[in-house]
């Protein structure tokens, strides 16, 4: 299939005397490269400038806290089930007395890890979450030297109390409505198969 009309049919025809001189060809080539002197630079000077990203860009995850600063996650494991790359692991724990300010509900995630090397940033965890606890933000994942460092624990995922992350773009009513649709794949999975029925990590 012809995608563009820029393709050229190659032939082995003998060069004319003018072509054998090469000079016109060379000059033509130099004009082409020279004309690029006056074209727009494609470079984005990264730390100072960043490329504009879409509002719904899916990057580094965040574990949200509620208005009081308590973690929303209840370690239900739905995100881990929904994850096609099996990047999420968690360990739950029971909330003790006096920890009400830290965790919203009686059960919370003691360990919550996402392997950023496995994660494909599809956002299914976000869709699966019934507690509005996990979101994908537009932050880029850091570079690291070791593979182990790419397994992000709660320290890197949970948002700081004094430094909230705005995910209002992802919490719109439409999204909430969308999540309630019965026909969605992960909801289906939750309905038909039981969670404890052989979904290992």
């Amino acid at each position, binding site marked *: 299939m012809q995608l563009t009309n820029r393709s050229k049919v190659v032939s082995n025809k003998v060069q004319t005397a003018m072509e054998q001189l090469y000079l016109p060809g*060379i000059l033509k*080539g*130099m004009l*082409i*490269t020279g004309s*690029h*002197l006056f074209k*727009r*630079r494609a470079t984005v*000077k990264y730390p100072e400038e960043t490329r504009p990203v879409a509002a719904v860009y899916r990057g580094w995850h965040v574990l949200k806290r509620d208005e009081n600063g308590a973690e929303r996650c209840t370690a239900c494991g739905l995100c881990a089930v929904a994850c096609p790359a099996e990047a999420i692991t968690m360990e739950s724990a029971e909330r003790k007395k006096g920890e009400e300010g830290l965790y919203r509900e009686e059960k919370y995630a003691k360990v919550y890890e996402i392997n950023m090397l496995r994660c494909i940033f599809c956002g299914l965890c976000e869709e699966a979450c019934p507690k509005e606890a996990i979101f994908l933000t537009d932050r880029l994942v850091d570079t690291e030297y070791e593979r182990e460092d790419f397994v992000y624990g709660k320290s890197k995922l949970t948002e700081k109390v004094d430094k909230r992350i705005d995910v209002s773009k992802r919490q719109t009513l439409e999204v909430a409505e969308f999540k309630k649709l019965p026909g969605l794949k992960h909801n289906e999975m939750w309905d038909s198969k039981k969670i404890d029925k052989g979904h290992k990590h």
Partner: protein
Amino acid sequence: MLAFIIYKLIICVAVFGLSLAVAAYSTLWERKLSALLQDRVGPDRAGPFGLLQPLADGGKMFFKEEIIPNVSNKFLFILGPSLVMLTALMTGAVIPWAKDAYVGGKLYSMQITDINIGILYLFGVVSVGVYGIMIGGWASNNKYALLGSMRASSQMISYEIAMGIAVIALIITSGGTLSLREIVEQQDAGFANIVWQPLGFIIFFVCALAETNRAPFDLPECEAELVGGYHTEYSSMKLGLFLFAEYINMFISSAVMAAFYFGGYNFPFAQELYDAMGLADGSKWIAIIGFGAYFTKIFLFISVFMWIRWTLPRFRYDQLMNLGWRILLPLSLLNLAITVVVEFFRGHITF
């Protein structure tokens, strides 16, 4: 006597430093220009506009690990890059940088030495430069290095011939002098030599590209076939010397081209400008303006060198030899014949 020696020393050091500085900043300009030609920005992190980049590169070169192959001849291995650098720096000695100027009441020549065989000196030094590459490639005890050095030296020897014949035609137009200063001085009134020697200039330019091992003639260091060419086994500052010498050679050959064909420190209506400014002969300002004009030309030539490098693909080895022997050599002979006829009718030659 002592004053003379000091003056010579100062001018030697000045030319030496100038060559090194220009070469260092040529590396930056090469990277910048290649970036501009490819819609990129180029190095801009070290200092404002990346102006400290050459220092960073040099520092990196110095602190890299020095590897000398165990089986190679150590002395020759070190001699190779040193020789290349030495000959590259030696060529700057005969180039007239500016007009003579009075400094402190004495007339000083802005040239290390004005020998009457300047052009021959250039050719001699360049032909000795081949040894550095050959010795370096051989002492590496590596077949790629050896092949690269063979290619480099055969390329340099082949293109020297066409270059020499093109220069002979130039010498005829400038009245049979071999001194660079006289050639430059002759172009201050009428036209620059390029008017009389357009073909000669093109031949010289192509040969200069080949002599400095610049693209599209950079197959001595052709990474695709030869790993790295004659400097495959070199590391650290010894590699730096090889790379640096290439830039010095580029600078010097640009300077020579500007002197031969574009009037060196002369420029159109120079005399009128000096008269309008009320500058007498031998004024410091004439020297400085002339030096600026010369440097503008050199800068343009260096930029064209780089522009060509980032435009054209590399020649194949047989194409290179074909171009040198079957096209450039006959062309330069033709140029010589035409020059003789033209000069005869201009009345510059009599039999």
